[in-house]
């Protein structure tokens, strides 16, 4: 049996849970897929999951699972796996999964393959595809040893709207676990957002984004000029915001904003997946990078291989003339 662990926060399903479910259904090719959700007061999330074409939804409820903790989740899932005996377990590659899945794999001493973008079955067995070397290569990998094998699915790699719906709601089966708060060592506080976002990049029609290729803080002005000429907002990859060259509210990517402008111009950005998830919804993507192998070109509509310090001034003057 294949099992998908859905993620919820305050009872609301994380969108990526549906993507993991879509990946599992595709990989299962008709074999039974079941889902599991854990927490406290998450029956509504289980009911939502039961709309998908799954064999069952396992509902693991316990007061000690009210807030996410790695100790609580690993104890609960270890018991659930003991009962359900899944073969492959798919999870969305979220921050939360990254926090507990390796611990669960280590507790069970079973394989964990992270950040997968595709899966394949052949006579030789199952294999999974994942980016390595910052997206410059893709590795096909296989899990060794006994089931369960844990597999995490990269966010955005599968489409949530591809999830097959069932003819009728699947059965929601409560699954009891024994936990006691004293087994949980982590004391989480409430999640919060840093200072209110003053710029809402998600509404921008055009964006010029700078990456580490800009080299120094004083060169940001060049990108600003291009943004001005295009009528665009200025954005950046994470290292630029980490260095304080632009405020964090201008960061695009998994830990920043998600944008979908008409035009996205990436200057000296390599195209790491954590950046790309935040901007691949842009209608027209332009990449300017001196490295012809940079992964950003895989998703670009227009690309120029070259030095941004030559190309950007030329663009500014071409825009001024036109």
């Amino acid at each position, binding site marked *: 049996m294949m099992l998908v662990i859905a993620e919820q926060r305050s009872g609301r399903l994380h969108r990526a849970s549906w993507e993991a479910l879509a990946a599992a259904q595709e990989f299962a090719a008709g074999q039974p897929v079941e889902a599991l959700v854990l927490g406290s007061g998450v029956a509504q999330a289980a009911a939502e999951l039961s709309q998908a074409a799954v064999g069952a939804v396992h509902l693991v409820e316990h007061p000690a699972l009210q807030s996410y903790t790695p100790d609580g989740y690993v104890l609960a899932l270890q018991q659930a796996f003991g009962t359900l005996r899944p073969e492959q377990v798919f999870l969305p590659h979220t921050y939360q999964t990254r926090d507990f899945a390796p611990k669960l794999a280590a507790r069970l001493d079973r394989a964990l393959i992270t950040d997968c973008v595709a899966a394949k079955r052949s006579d030789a067995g199952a294999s999974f595809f994942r980016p390595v070397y*910052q997206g410059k290569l893709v590795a096909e990998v296989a899990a060794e040893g006994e089931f369960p094998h844990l597999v995490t699915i990269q966010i955005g790699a599968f489409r949530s709207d591809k999830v097959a719906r069932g003819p009728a709601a699947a059965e929601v089966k409560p699954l009891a676990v024994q936990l006691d708060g004293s087994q949980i060592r982590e004391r989480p506080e409430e999640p919060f957002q840093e200072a209110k976002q003053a710029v809402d990049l998600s509404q921008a029609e055009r964006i010029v984004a700078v990456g580490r290729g800009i080299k120094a803080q004083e060169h940001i002005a060049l990108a600003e000029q291009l943004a001005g000429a295009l009528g665009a907002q200025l954005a950046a990859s994470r290292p630029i915001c980490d260095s304080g060259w632009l405020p964090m509210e201008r960061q695009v990517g998994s830990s920043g904003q998600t944008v979908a402008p008409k035009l996205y111009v990436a200057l000296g950005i390599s195209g790491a997946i954590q950046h790309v998830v935040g901007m691949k919804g842009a209608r027209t993507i332009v990449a300017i990078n001196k490295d012809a192998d940079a992964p950003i070109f895989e998703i670009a509509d227009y690309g120029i291989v070259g030095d941004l310090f030559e190309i950007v001034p030329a663009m500014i003057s071409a825009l001024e003339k*036109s």
Partner: protein
Amino acid sequence: MKIAVCIKQVPVREWQPAVEETRRAIRERDASFEMNEPDAYALEEALRLREQHSGEVVVCTAGPARASQVLREALARGADRGIHVEHDGLTSIGADSFAVAAVLVDAIRDERFDLVLTGLQSDDQGAAQTGVILAERLGLPHATIVMEVQVAAGGLRVKRELEGGWFQWVELPLPALVTIQSGINQLRYATLKGIMAAKKKEIRKVSPGALPAAHVRVVSLDVPRKTKQTQMIAGPASEAAKVLVDKLKNDARVLG
């Protein structure tokens, strides 16, 4: 506070990895190597904690002989001593997270560190698992993707990064393991004095014998397939820029 920092030596980011004919490894002999970026931040965080709370910073790596270079660099930045688990099988792509965690645990368990820091993921494999497996094997509580570390009574209070600009503080008892996100601090670089001092610092070599069985096997390495039809615009900068602006205006119709 006695702190261990786990550092992986990885190929430099700028390198487009060349793949061996077997397609199961990269041509490491063609690569230059550097300290995995988040691990450099983990080291910096450890040095700052030592400055505030005194103690010792021990840097640990598992890799072939070449990996001792990252320990030297860490010692030059101020770490007190190093541990090198040396094995030719611990290659850039071939070192299995479980195997790395196992050999590191054997090398550091008896030292009873108060705090173990790792990077949140490696630039080469990007598995994002070695640190957390290490925590489980050492019996330590952990927190991942951390952007601030505070020492509180009997434990730590750490700021975990969540998705989309959200954060969360978590308290952990010590000893603990924390995985560090890039950008948590500003890195210091080695001074000439540091480099000289590093020459006298100890690096303990550990030979793990046979490596534990891998949980994940590399079947094949390839360059990614393009998902989009990209129009590449060639020519001198001024020409290319003109063509691009024209296309944005008249084909894509995305200008004002």
